């Protein structure tokens, strides 16, 4: 059968037609067996698979679907970006796995704070190439308390010399570049002062990347050891000492779309889980009620995220600053309880181990993997204990301990 051409971007202006065009495109172009394929490959072979899907998305202008025109993206109105993420999740199209930082954090950082030369040099490698970026933020002694990081960057004429250790860097083993936070002034008044923001070429001598073996059996994260790594001065982003502020825009950049995609993906598998269990645990009154109760929690998370997206669409400046904190504190524990529920409901079968399926975020539907992986939302990105401090102190006005 002759494949028709798809003009998704040409449908902007008609949400229904836009949505339908994405559905038609996905129905034809999304490889049916991608889960099996991706599950069985890692490293370069996995990257090749992800790039294949990235290229398919690029054919219709959705390689970097949420990018504005000035970044080299399609410049979709926010409502249409939401549709893209929603339809991709509903169709179980894979996430672009190791390109997460490249597609979200790097452009947001460079566009707001990078020099023209930096934008020119690096963004093409993302929009047209296959550059993988990683993030060098956390350190063994600076997790949720990121500002106490100790990796040092010493200025020496035309370059900085970096020494220290980073941890929890997703995809660092395969990364081409790293968004690095390092301390340029150890004598800052507050610990947030004296931090600077760099682009580190991962091919630089002196970088040693060691994979971290996770409880899931995967090695998604790595440790990075920097031993006299030279970073040229032109790789400093923004002003020296302003790294903490720049890092805030890196971290706040995803505008709810990533979590929206993940939650919609879970909503899809939640429905399938119940349907597939008709002849098993859905016939058990206790599990059945638990499932119905979890449905309410899932709906509340979905509705909170929709509200956030609506606010962002109306006016990003006026969007509730507190809603994202509540969302994280509800979503992470919910995800953990739901995936744990499935373990209890499905017994021994759920304990059988298989390699993870990249690109499925928290909805691989491999029970034990999804459960173990749920800590990604309760620990990463500011642990939920930090979220509780933020809510009780900054929102509810309770005094610091």
């Amino acid at each position: 059968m002759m494949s028709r051409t798809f003009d998704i971007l040409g449908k902007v202006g008609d949400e229904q037609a836009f949505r339908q065009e994405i559905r038609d495109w996905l129905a034809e172009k999304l490889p049916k067996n991608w889960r099996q394929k991706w599950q069985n490959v890692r490293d370069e072979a996995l990257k090749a698979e992800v790039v294949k899907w990235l290229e398919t998305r690029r054919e219709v202008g959705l390689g970097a679907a949420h990018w504005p025109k000035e970044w080299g993206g399609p410049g979709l109105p926010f409502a249409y970006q939401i549709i893209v993420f929603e339809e991709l999740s509903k169709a179980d199209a894979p996430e672009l796995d190791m390109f997460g930082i490249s597609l979200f954090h790097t452009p947001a950082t460079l566009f707001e704070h990078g020099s023209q030369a930096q934008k020119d040099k690096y963004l093409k490698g993302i929009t047209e190439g296959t550059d993988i970026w990683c993030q060098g933020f956390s350190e063994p002694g600076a997790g949720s308390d990121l500002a106490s990081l100790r990796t040092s960057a010493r200025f020496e004429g035309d370059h900085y010399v970096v020494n220290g250790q980073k941890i929890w860097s997703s995809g660092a083993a395969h990364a081409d570049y790293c968004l690095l936070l390092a301390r340029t002034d150890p004598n800052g008044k507050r610990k947030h002062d004296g931090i600077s923001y760099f682009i580190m070429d991962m091919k630089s001598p002196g970088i040693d990347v060691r994979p971290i073996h996770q409880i899931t059996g995967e090695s998604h994260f790595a440790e990075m050891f920097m031993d006299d790594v030279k970073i040229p001065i032109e790789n400093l982003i923004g002003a020296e000492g302003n790294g903490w502020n720049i890092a805030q825009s890196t971290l706040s950049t995803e505008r709810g779309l990533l979590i929206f995609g993940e939650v919609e993906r879970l909503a899809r598998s939640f429905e399938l889980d119940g349907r597939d269990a008709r002849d098993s645990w859905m016939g058990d009154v206790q599990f059945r009620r638990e499932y119905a109760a979890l449905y309410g929690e899932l709906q509340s998370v979905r509705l909170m995220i929709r509200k956030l997206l609506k606010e962002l669409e109306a006016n990003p400046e006026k969007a509730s600053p507190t809603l994202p904190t509540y969302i994280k504190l509800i979503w992470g524990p919910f995800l953990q309880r739901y995936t744990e529920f499935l373990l209890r409901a499905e017994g021994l079968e759920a304990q059988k181990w298989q390699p993870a399926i990249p690109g499925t975020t928290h909805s691989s539907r491999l029970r034990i993997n999804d459960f173990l992986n749920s800590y990604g939302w309760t620990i990463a990105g500011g642990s939920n204990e930090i979220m509780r401090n933020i809510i009780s102190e900054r929102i509810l006005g309770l005094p610091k301990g």
Partner: protein
Amino acid sequence: MSEEVDLEVLAESFNEFLIAEWPREKAVAYARRNEAYSADLWSQVAALGWTALNASEAQGGLGMGTPATAALHEALGAAASPLPMLGNTLAIALIEAIGTDVQKAAMLPALIDGSERACFPEPGAATLNADGLVLNGVVTDVLDAPAATLIFLRATQAGKTVWIALPTTAKGIEITATPLADTSRSLGTIVLKDVSADASNVLAPTNAQTADDELMRLAAIAIAADALGGGNAVLAVTIEYMKVREQFGRVIGSFQGLKHRVADHKAALEAARELVEHAASLDADAPDALLAALTAKQHVTRVTAEVARDCIQLHGGVGFTSEYVPHIYLKRAKLNEALFGTRSVLLDRIADMLEAK
């Protein structure tokens, strides 16, 4: 957009009035008395048009719809106000949906202006036999029956389900109040001995299931909204207390073990709000309207009951005294959980609906 703004203004006006007219001290004092409802407060809110909120403009109401009804019940819950509002909300909706023009003209004005107070039995309560239009039987545990002037009874007539509306003054009706822990509401058992009805009292739905579902949907939204208001109010009171109560030389609100609990409560109530607002925003005939309402009811009443339970604990000894307000919210929260279907009953129904999707 303007609707949303109006709703906020409306909710604000409910709250402002109740904070002024039904402050905590009044709620605490009232809880020690044994009254079916506060007649003074009822006439005040009726005069403000609160009882006219969900009645259509064609019938002389304000026609503000379910979101406004939810906002009203949220405010009533926040103040733990002793008003039998749910009965009027349901009665107006039922009469508008299935009443004849004559019945609408006869019954709606007095419900809308608040001179009549209606009550409805729980779903699954005794169904009377109305053949021959002489009623006998006992309907137990009817919310707000001791405060009502008009009772609605589920009955069968020639094999069909009908609703019968009777004045509490009708000959042969006796209502006995059953004490509740939550004194902000009342419960009664209705005994009927040879009570004569006539056709004007009989409301006959074309589809009994649809009528039942619609009553359940509205009750679920109203109770969920009441719970939401109560949860936020008791949490706010508790946080205030945590900012001033000192132990070991510091305010207890500075202890992380307590702070984290209230942070979780706050987040849970923020999430709960979404379920209430969403359920209230759907039209009655939207595909998931009933599912959303039952989901809101089971979840929000559970969340608030847990928040209120912990708020007594966070208050320490004074939380166990009737001088302080948290017990009022705890009791109201527990009653909300039990009204119009316990959680298990609702979860079973929700599971059925999810399976049928």
